[in-house]
């Protein structure tokens, strides 16, 4: 599968998007290696020994940082691990006074808010990507729209979390309370389990919406680039067989880019999981988990941000374990994304996915 994303095209995009693209292309494309690896070890030139030393030192420091981080997190959380063991992950009581710590509300809160963010962002961003890659370029009236929309999507991926948080506090929350949560809470829909509780804007809904807006440009941009990279011939073949545009998109284009898109979505999900500031500012910071979107909650990242400064002893240890937990969850999601891409790509190749 020859998804190649040109470097120049990513000029103004957010770094995260570039990283994602690279991660995807790296997985999809076995790239030619310069046969220099072996050379480094052989026939050292004068000065090359230092050169090699410096390069290796840089490489090893990356390793040291990661290993150090992991060790530091494990070391810091050993008190909590030995006190609570596995119960830490299934216990929903977070009581600093009673020195009793369970991370379940934060784990569920993190997954739940990110899940809803994905539910909201995925259809919109996929359809937007389809619009940008498939519909706008072929339409005479809408061709001009593509560039500004693309530009804006890319620009928005670069906006820092805290700025989204600022907007969330000053604009989104009052708006939600007035036009969404208030009316729903007063109406018959409030009987639904996802719409119970006080409609005050500091809740899962606000957090999920902000997360959705934050990952929307990310998923859109990556998917659009993947769709664009698909050779014209693929589409033309489909049209030649009499398929409509939608049938071509659904039956040919999307399956072709499936691996990359799943990867983009999972990487977006991973980003939502670790997001701190914007979520902390709107989620209400209550260490309980309820399924209602109108309930305040808490996430792994925001409990660290809020409570680390005042924690000591077992309390601090529990927060470090939460950091460890967050680290592992994002690792699993990102790793899973790559495995998925890897195997789907392999499948595609095996079943003649190359056109």
């Amino acid at each position: 599968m020859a998804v190649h994303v040109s470097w120049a095209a990513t000029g103004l995009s957010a770094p995260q998007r570039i990283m994602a693209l690279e991660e995807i292309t790296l997985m999809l494309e076995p790239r030619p290696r310069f046969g220099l690896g072996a050379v480094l070890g052989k026939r050292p030139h004068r000065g090359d020994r230092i050169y090699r030393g410096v390069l290796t030192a840089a490489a090893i420091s990356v390793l040291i940082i990661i290993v150090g981080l992991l060790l530091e997190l494990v070391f810091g959380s050993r008190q909590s691990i030995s006190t609570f063991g596995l119960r830490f992950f299934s216990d929903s009581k977070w009581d600093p006074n009673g020195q009793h710590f369970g991370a379940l509300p934060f784990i569920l809160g993190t997954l739940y808010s990110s899940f809803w963010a994905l539910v909201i962002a995925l259809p919109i961003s996929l359809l937007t990507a389809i619009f940008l890659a498939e519909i706008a370029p072929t339409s005479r009236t809408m061709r001009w729209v593509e560039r500004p929309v693309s530009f804006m999507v890319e620009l928005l991926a670069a906006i820092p979390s805290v700025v989204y948080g600022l907007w969330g506090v000053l604009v989104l929350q009052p708006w939600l309370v007035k036009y969404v949560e208030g009316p729903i809470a007063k109406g018959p829909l409030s009987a639904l389990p996802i719409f119970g509780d006080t409609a005050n804007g500091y809740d899962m809904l606000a957090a999920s919406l902000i997360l959705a807006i934050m990952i929307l440009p990310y998923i859109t941009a990556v998917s659009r680039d993947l769709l664009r990279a698909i050779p014209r011939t693929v589409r033309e073949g489909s049209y030649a067989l009499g398929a409509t545009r939608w049938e071509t998109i659904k039956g040919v284009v999307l399956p072709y880019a499936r691996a990359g898109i799943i990867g983009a979505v999972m990487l977006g999900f991973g980003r939502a999981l670790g997001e701190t500031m914007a979520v902390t500012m709107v989620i209400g910071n209550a260490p309980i988990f309820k399924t209602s979107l109108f309930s305040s909650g808490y996430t792994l990242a925001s409990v660290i941000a809020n409570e680390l400064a005042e924690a000591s002893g077992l309390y601090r240890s529990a927060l470090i374990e939460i950091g460890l937990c967050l680290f592992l969850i994002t690792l699993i999601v990102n790793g899973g994304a790559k495995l998925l891409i890897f195997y789907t790509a392999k499948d595609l190749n095996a079943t003649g996915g190359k056109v």
Partner: protein
Amino acid sequence: MTIAESSFRSTGRSRFRRSLSAFMAGLSIAAAIIACVALLSVLVYIVINGIGSISLSTFTEGPVPQGQPGGGLRNGIVGTLILMSIGSVIGLPIGILGGVYQLETNTTFSRTLRFFTDVLNSIPSIVMGLFAYLIVVLPVAAFSPGHAFSAFAGGVALGFLMIPTVMRTTEEILRLVPTTLRDASLALGASRWRTTWSVVLPAARGGIVTGVLLALARIAGETAPLLFTAFGNLDFNVRLDHPIDALPLNIFNYATSPYENLHHLALAGAIILLAIILILSLAARYALRGQTME
């Protein structure tokens, strides 16, 4: 393709297929509009209100006592620039050299390293802040009480966050340098480091600058890693061993406060931060343009 579609005969089945196609096209247009409205509402609100909140004093004044009107973001702006510099000093050498290492070697270790770079890239920034707190702030507190929160500690966290972006872009861009160039240099008897230094790096200069600028754009707005490292400062500070203010910290603290003037300062700060990021991104694009023309 309109030609392809118009060739259908108007049977019921094909009419259905065509209207489904049109419907889905409409749906995707609607999605694009929703996305644009959502995203524009963020940008337009911040830009309009932010620009209205900026004045000269935003750049020349520090914070005022709580509850008093006025105040500026001087400390935060300077602090952010200082933090970005420290981050660069820590992150760039490791990132660029690590990228060159990746280019030069293809061993089990270098593949492991690639995996570790991915891991480093997926670490949430709050965890990096936690790490800097554990390895810098707490040990320094035991060693020199009262000087533990520092610009240095914040810079460490930011520097570590820069590494994967810089490393990846460096490697990617170096790979674009034709192998023949390197081979020619090596064939002429140049040493490996000489080849990298005099041939490969100059040829890839623009791309590396792009990577650096994008990494800077990434860390400019980072807030979470600074909460318990840089800490914030009421006073103007350029000393690296003292707590330092940062724009994102200002935005966070001011946005969650009830004071009107602080809300305005937060919006002004957001605009300044966006301007910094926009300039870095545009410069990154410009650097890359020079690259492709060479």
